[in-house]
């Protein structure tokens, strides 16, 4: 078993290794952000960089200062450390993206399952709902909601899941339709299993595995959209660290403060790129039709 695993890993292409490694590094950053950048005051922690995302002495710190040994990525428009804000921003983005994907997946799976399982009127009704949401100028709708409601992760989560569950729902629905007529399900039904049991024991597990292929892509696109929204000023509340917020500052100051654009932009790009590459590697691995290629 174990040696099989090693052999399997050895077969993986280099790019998968690199992208997988990068994904791991980012997850590490997200989990250990408080140890990477924090005010030295907090006891028991010896952070890499002595600044928290919000710590600044406005009288001493230079605003929009170029990178130095003290501020390795420079300072932002009110003199905060860009490295600290970037690390915590990445943490926020990654956690939030996981949250969004999880919620989308749960809603999508349950609804799609119900639609595929029961079919008929339920299917027709929710298909309409899907069509309604799918045909909305969704970005405009998101901007509207974010502009008019209070800024915060709750509203952001709502706005992002608004249309995000649809692909999962569509996929699970199709899987259920396919599986419903398969022999093992028919057999279970003939043996007198309850509907609930068939739903959760037979159909759900079988349609879930392929669903996980979506996850890295969805994470990556959620992070991109979140970045774009906070870039436009519709994301997190004003003082919360985020990658998009740094890029927003870069837009105003792009002639005098390149470090505001280059580091956040570079890290955002690296994060989404590695997620997407890792995702396609995962898909190639799990998708049985492509294994023999």
């Amino acid at each position: 078993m174990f040696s099989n695993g090693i052999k399997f890993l050895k077969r993986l292409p280099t790019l998968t290794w690199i992208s997988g490694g990068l994904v791991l590094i980012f997850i590490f950053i997200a989990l250990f952000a408080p140890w990477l950048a924090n005010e030295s005051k907090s006891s028991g922690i010896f952070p890499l960089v002595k600044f928290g995302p919000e710590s600044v002495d406005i009288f001493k710190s230079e605003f929009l200062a170029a990178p130095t040994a003290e501020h390795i990525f420079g300072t932002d428009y009110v003199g905060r450390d860009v490295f600290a804000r970037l690390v915590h921003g990445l943490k926020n983005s990654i956690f939030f993206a996981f949250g969004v994907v999880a919620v989308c997946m749960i809603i999508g799976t349950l609804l799609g399952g119900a639609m595929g399982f029961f079919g008929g009127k339920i299917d027709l009704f929710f298909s309409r709902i899907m069509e309604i949401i799918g045909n909305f100028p969704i970005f405009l709708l998101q901007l509207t909601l974010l502009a008019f409601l209070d800024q915060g992760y709750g509203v952001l989560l709502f706005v992002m899941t608004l249309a995000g569950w649809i692909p999962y729902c569509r996929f699970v629905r199709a899987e259920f339709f396919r599986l419903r007529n398969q022999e093992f399900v028919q057999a279970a039904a003939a043996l007198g299993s309850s509907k609930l049991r068939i739903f959760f024991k037979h159909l759900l597990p079988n349609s879930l595995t392929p669903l996980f292929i979506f996850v890295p892509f969805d994470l990556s696109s959620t992070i991109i959209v979140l970045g774009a929204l906070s870039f436009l000023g519709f994301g997190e509340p004003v003082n919360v660290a985020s990658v998009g917020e740094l890029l927003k500052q870069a837009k105003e100051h792009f002639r005098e403060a390149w470090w505001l654009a280059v580091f956040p932009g570079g890290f955002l790009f690296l994060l989404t790129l590695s997620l997407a590459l890792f995702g396609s590697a995962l898909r190639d691995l799990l998708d049985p039709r492509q294994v023999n290629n």
Partner: protein
Amino acid sequence: MRNFYRSFFILISISSLSFISCNRSNNSTSDATSEMSATNLQPVKNDWMVSWLAANPTTLNPILKTDAYASAVVDWLFDSLIRFDPKTAQPEGRLAESWEVSKDGLTYDFTLRPGITFHDGHPLTTEDVKFTFDTIKNPKVDAAHLQNYFASLKSVEVLSPLKVRFHLKEIYYRNLIMLGLVDIMPKHIYGVGDFNKNAANRKPIGSGPYVFKSWDNGQSVELVRNKNYFGNQVEKLKNLYNFERLVFRIITEPSVALMALKKGDIDAMEPTTRQYYSELATPEVEKKFYRFRYDTADGNGHGFIGWNLRLPLFQSKEVRQALAYAMPREEINKKIYFNSRTLAVGTFPKVSPKSEPSLQPIPYDSAKAKALLEKAGWKINPATGIFEKDGKKFSFELLFGAGNSDSERVALIYQQALKQIGIEMNIRTLEWTVFVKQMQAFKFDALMMGWGGALDMDPYQIWHSSQANGEGSNFIGFKNPEADKLMEQARVTLDPNKRNKLYHQFSKILAEEAPYLFLFEVPSLFVGSKRFQGILPVPLMGLDSAAWFTPKGMEKYKEQ
């Protein structure tokens, strides 16, 4: 509504750098003005002037318009009864030849100049004047914001085709401004059909120095010179309006507008502070453009943080003063505004004759802030480092309109400064309309925003206790009987010197009570092509673009 929100009195404090570059010989303003408008330069009248609009105007109807973009265009198309001379700030006739105020101050008679016509050749009479004011007061007309303003106008009476009488309900020192600066509109055009939907709202017809030519939706508006303008025969007006065509380019992104300026597609604009001091502060720009910064006595307005005086937290005067001492305005001015801001001392601009001259801006002083808080009964909790009183910590929320990066920076800096002293402030931003709604419902702890400047400003609407109940603009709920009395008296005092004395006393009360934390006065910033002459700010009025001209040989566009 010419100039209601536009600065009028002006004190020039041009950034020395740009100033020297356009007059090598001397730095004194009056000399500079005379040099720049020296008569040896021959104006040519066939050049164009291209300016920038940041958005498509909603309408070009002077009464219905609500945005500054429409005002920028409409000002050239219509005339008002009077105007204020830019050099002396004295009222003088425009459409009106003369006017008289009755002894009781409640009736105003205006006599029009004979022979004035609208752009379509129709004569302008007092019927048009009456129509204009009746329209403003007509509740079916979509101009609710003006109806409130003209509430004290009782009626307009036509005495003869050239003589009109206004009946007013009360004596008020701004009555002449209110009546004299309204754009007069032709009755035979706008009086036909539904005013709100009139076709002329998009193809305006007035009597002004320029005639509407075209409005390419979302792209540009063009005006051409009115060949039959009555002002050509009027001594004070005849040397103005020197461009054959005015083009207003609509560019919705400010940074692109700046690029367009540098490329020469736009001749003049008001840049942001950042643009002015960083991207425009280059020798290449200096070669092609004038660049000024100036302050005005009526001001562009000022920013402030208002404390909700209905809350127990902000009841104490000491607390409010402490909050003002805790704001590092000098630091903010230096670090984010390139030292371009004047620290506000009160509701009137520092250079205004209405402001008490002895008032000094409140400096940053954390020790004093702490002492004041302790005097008001607050004590630092050693465990948290935050001030507490009766077991409650000093914590509040600052609310402001989203989307302005400079406001965000000010709020973040203030948050840090308060934290150092031992006060917790949370920041919350809302989209503008939502913010206004919240403000009108008094649902805030503290709010940050700004008031625009106005000609001969009256503080009544903002500070009188009668305006604190939802109808006025006294959102913070400031109630002070002494201040009320002073403002009521000032409104009916027609002698400006006596009035200013009253306002001096009022300013002192405001400074003592500190109901607002006054932030910065907004300066006027300007860049414009060196092709133009006569462009320097004249002593009293800001930039009178009506007086600009292109000297012979410098013209860029040549009208055939």
